[in-house]
């Protein structure tokens, strides 16, 4: 039972190719700021799980991350995701299939070499939730 619980904690992004980024396999964890929150601290936002990464990437890493994102978008209905790209920014917003009443969302933003990735779960996991969390 303990082993199963450990796996549940570790594999919240299971099924996504970007999981390897969260697992520190693309960018070393020593070069990033990782935040992982689960439970009561998130209840006021209607979330059950929040996992984010913030780091500066290198060119090689950028290629690998974009490859993973592309794989995660492949085969998904167009209405489930949006991407935008220009000289400064590259963004991916992906609404994953809900698990019961739990919505799941992956947000990715590149601004030059600065990267921000958020994976969140919960009955109210949406962009509005991000605004609420940032106290705007």
């Amino acid at each position, binding site marked *: 039972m303990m082993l199963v619980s450990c796996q549940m904690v570790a594999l919240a992004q299971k099924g996504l190719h970007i999981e390897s980024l969260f697992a520190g396999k693309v960018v070393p964890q020593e070069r*990033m700021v990782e935040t992982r929150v689960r439970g009561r601290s998130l209840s006021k936002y209607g979330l059950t799980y929040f996992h984010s990464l913030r780091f500066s990437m290198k060119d090689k890493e950028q290629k690998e991350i974009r490859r993973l994102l592309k794989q995660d978008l492949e085969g998904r209905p167009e209405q489930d995701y949006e991407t935008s790209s220009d000289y400064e920014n590259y963004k991916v917003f992906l609404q994953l299939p809900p698990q019961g009443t739990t919505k799941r969302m992956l947000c990715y933003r590149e*601004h030059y070499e600065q990267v921000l990735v958020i994976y969140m779960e919960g009955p109210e996991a*949406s962009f509005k939730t991000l605004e609420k*969390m*940032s106290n705007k």
Partner: protein
Amino acid sequence: MLTERFFYGDTTIEEERELYRLYQGHDVPQDLQAYREMMLDLAAIGAEEYSIMDKQETIDIPIWRRPFFRWIAAAVVALLVIGGATTLFMHNSEEECVAYIYGQKVTDHNVVMNELSQTAMSMANSRGDDDIAQQLDEMFN
């Protein structure tokens, strides 16, 4: 052999009972026939003593000293320990608030939640750049 041990006083009560049963039978070896009468007498005396001892054992052994009760008690304690540990672990696995800042683990709730807010704000601010988020909000909410 058992008879020899009996005379040396090395036999247990169970062995003595077994010995008495053997001597009560009709196939006692010839070389042990000399002891038969004595053994039958001892058996008669012993039967009374054992009967009394058995009754005392039944009456005197408290329930918490009986092997069966001890096994039950051990099983209950083991279940409580395992159950408690599992509950505690499950509770902890549902609660997590941690940040790894360039490899340094931080568990201070305020620091972690502040980082969470900053991250959320940065992502939310990117909404102003285009209308993607607005579109997705409309679609899913």
